[in-house]
């Protein structure tokens, strides 16, 4: 009984916290429906050309543009099961650049309305053996081409799209957690509790590509920010990184864009020239996430080595 009381008070604390900080951030992004956090600054001076319903071309200051309703089409979620045509998404993580800024983690948690102990994206301190230097490794869902999680799902709640993204339909999920047991990357999280700010989001329509609002008793995980990709933007974590760790792009076009510098490079060249590899590739899961080796390991402070 004590246990549940503790849970209760923790929940209350988190709810208050959420209402102040995380919640308002996530809420504003829901209303705005955009992937860019700074959309409320007025009159930026930059104009955008738009085509109206009457076939007139107009020019509007970009600050005044906001998406009214992302779910205009009623079969939006069934569309979301198919994937974007002509795309196969790939993420490249340059471990040499990661300095554990954790901006990606914070952004991810707030956008996906996660509790502090839930991770779609987790920056790990890795160390192969006693005498090797540790390094930081951001780890999200690997969006495998042979996904163990999708195979075991009894109700097709988690599925693989044509563009390589593995998603979860939390209106379908029965909460058996077989996918969590099957995932070798520990990429999945379960809603053990009522999600934060559940009351606030209860009337918000479910967005399968963002997997929000979260639902109690269902599984959640990284979506490769499929909602951003549909709008032609980079994933939340990729653009939140201050250190240029992430490259994201379309493998069919052989191009990946760095989320910090905006520089676009050849995916093949990037991976080949830097000795890129995939995590636990020997398991045969065929991930869509590639890692460039952690050449610069001096970035890890000494005290963080201890809990490896």
């Amino acid at each position: 009984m004590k246990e549940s009381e503790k849970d209760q008070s923790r929940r209350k604390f988190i709810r208050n916290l959420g209402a102040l900080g995380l919640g308002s951030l996530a809420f504003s992004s829901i209303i705005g429906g955009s992937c860019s956090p700074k959309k409320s600054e007025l009159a930026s001076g930059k104009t955008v050309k738009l085509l109206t319903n009457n076939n007139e071309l107009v020019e509007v200051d970009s600050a005044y543009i906001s998406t009214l309703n992302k779910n205009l089409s009623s079969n939006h979620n069934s569309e979301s099961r198919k994937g974007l045509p002509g795309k196969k998404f790939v993420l490249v993580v340059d471990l040499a650049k990661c300095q554990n800024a954790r901006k990606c983690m914070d952004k991810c948690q707030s956008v996906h309305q996660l509790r502090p102990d839930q991770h779609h994206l987790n920056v790990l301190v890795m160390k192969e053996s006693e005498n090797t230097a540790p390094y930081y490794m951001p780890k999200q869902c690997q969006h495998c081409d042979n996904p163990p999680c999708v195979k075991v799902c009894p109700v097709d709640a988690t599925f693989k799209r044509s563009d390589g993204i593995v998603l979860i339909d939390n209106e379908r999920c029965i909460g058996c957690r077989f996918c969590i047991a099957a995932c070798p990357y520990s990429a999945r999280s379960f809603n053990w509790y009522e999600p934060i700010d559940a009351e606030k989001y209860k009337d918000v329509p479910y967005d399968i590509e963002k997997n929000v609002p979260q639902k109690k008793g269902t599984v959640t995980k990284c979506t490769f920010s499929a909602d951003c990709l549909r709008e032609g933007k980079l994933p939340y974590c990729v653009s939140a990184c201050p250190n240029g760790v992430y490259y994201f792009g379309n493998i069919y076009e052989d191009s990946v864009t760095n989320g910090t510098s905006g520089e676009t490079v050849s995916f093949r060249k990037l991976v080949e020239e830097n000795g890129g590899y995939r995590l636990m590739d020997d398991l045969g899961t065929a991930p869509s996430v590639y890692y460039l080796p952690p050449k610069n390991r001096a970035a890890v402070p000494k005290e963080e080595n201890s809990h490896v």
Partner: protein
Amino acid sequence: MREVYRKEEQEQRLQLEQIVTDLTLPINKTYPSFKIWVGFLLLLIAVGVAMYVQQLIYGLSVTDMRDIASWGLYISDFVFLIAVSLVGSLITAILKLSNVKWTTPLTRIAEVIAVAAVVGALTIIVVDMGRPDRLWHIFVYGRIQSPIVWDIIVVNTYLVISLLLLYLPMIPDIALLRQRMNNKPKWQQKTYQILSMGWQGTDEQFKILERSINVLIVLIVPVALAIHTVTSWLFATTLRPGWDSTIFGPYFVSGAFMVGAAAVILLMFIVRIRYNYAKYITDYHFDMMAKLLVLTSLVYLYFNINEYLVPAYKMKTLDGEHINGLFFGHFSSMFWFVQIAGMVIPIFLMIFKPFRKPKAVLVISIFVIIGAFLKRFLIVTPTMLHPFLPVQNYPESYHHYTPTIPESLIVVGSFAGVALVITLFLKVFPIIPIWETAHEKGISNGIIKNSCK
């Protein structure tokens, strides 16, 4: 000549009367302790249900399962109950097909354990679901490539065949009860009336019955092997160290036969003591069940050696960590208790005849059952707690799994439910087959037939 025949018939009739009186004793006589026992079970179930309501309100957060150990006590309980249920097929089908005769008084005990355990397993797996309100999704959106769907198919098939195997051989007994139990409440008489399906005991009816039972006992063997093999595949189809094993199917099946035999011994003992059935469930039966337990345990021991010592020889990184954890780490005391007190010592002791006496076998069986439950916990939990990648940025509690009070009470409730099903069965139906016992004692079919009319 005719006189002698008459006398023999008279004797047989008296003998049958004695058997019927003995074997309907649990139905006719309600001991005060029975009511206390049922009340106790109902209380445990009520507590379990109350805890489950709490779980429905607050979510699975009332358990100690979290993102790392996302399966725990419920899944262990599920695997345990499925394992126990396998004994129905062992006693009623496999031994019968091998022409073993001594199991006659034990068949119904085994079969009722099987049915009750499957019902318990199906209940606890729903308890484990995050969204039990979406159970119907499995039937609407079910995908055949998921081992969960295989499990649902085979477990339910097994339940149906087990129910039939419990029911069909009981039809002549029910017909007998229909005639005799006139002092019982109306619903009970009506139940006998319906379930006896117009049984008259004609030769043709016996022939049909025998043929149907023969079909069922052949059918149930592959289904029984399938339910536990598929249950093992819930683990073996993943890549995790400790589960990624090719011998999980037979390993689980052999373990199931072991715990099932122990469960039958436990119920045999209770029935024998409570209703003075020493005449029907004799020391010989305990001796033979103990030998069966030794045999099944030896097979299980063989698989344990394969499962643990082969990876321990190689010490491949993650398998090695898993083995180290079991042998010397956090779970080592539980592991060695299970292996030694729940398997090696029982095998060793029961080789000697004095330890195959009823009381000794009972104590040994209780150790085997406790060991088997803990074993299921050891199969599920350590592997969950040690995924491929390091567990970081989680609260400290995520590194451990200790079942909370609510989840433990729910599991206790599931055991109480299994016990209640068996208890209530005992109250309505004869736990030892009447006509098969009579038949075995040489009483002719004609006399048995007459007693049903």
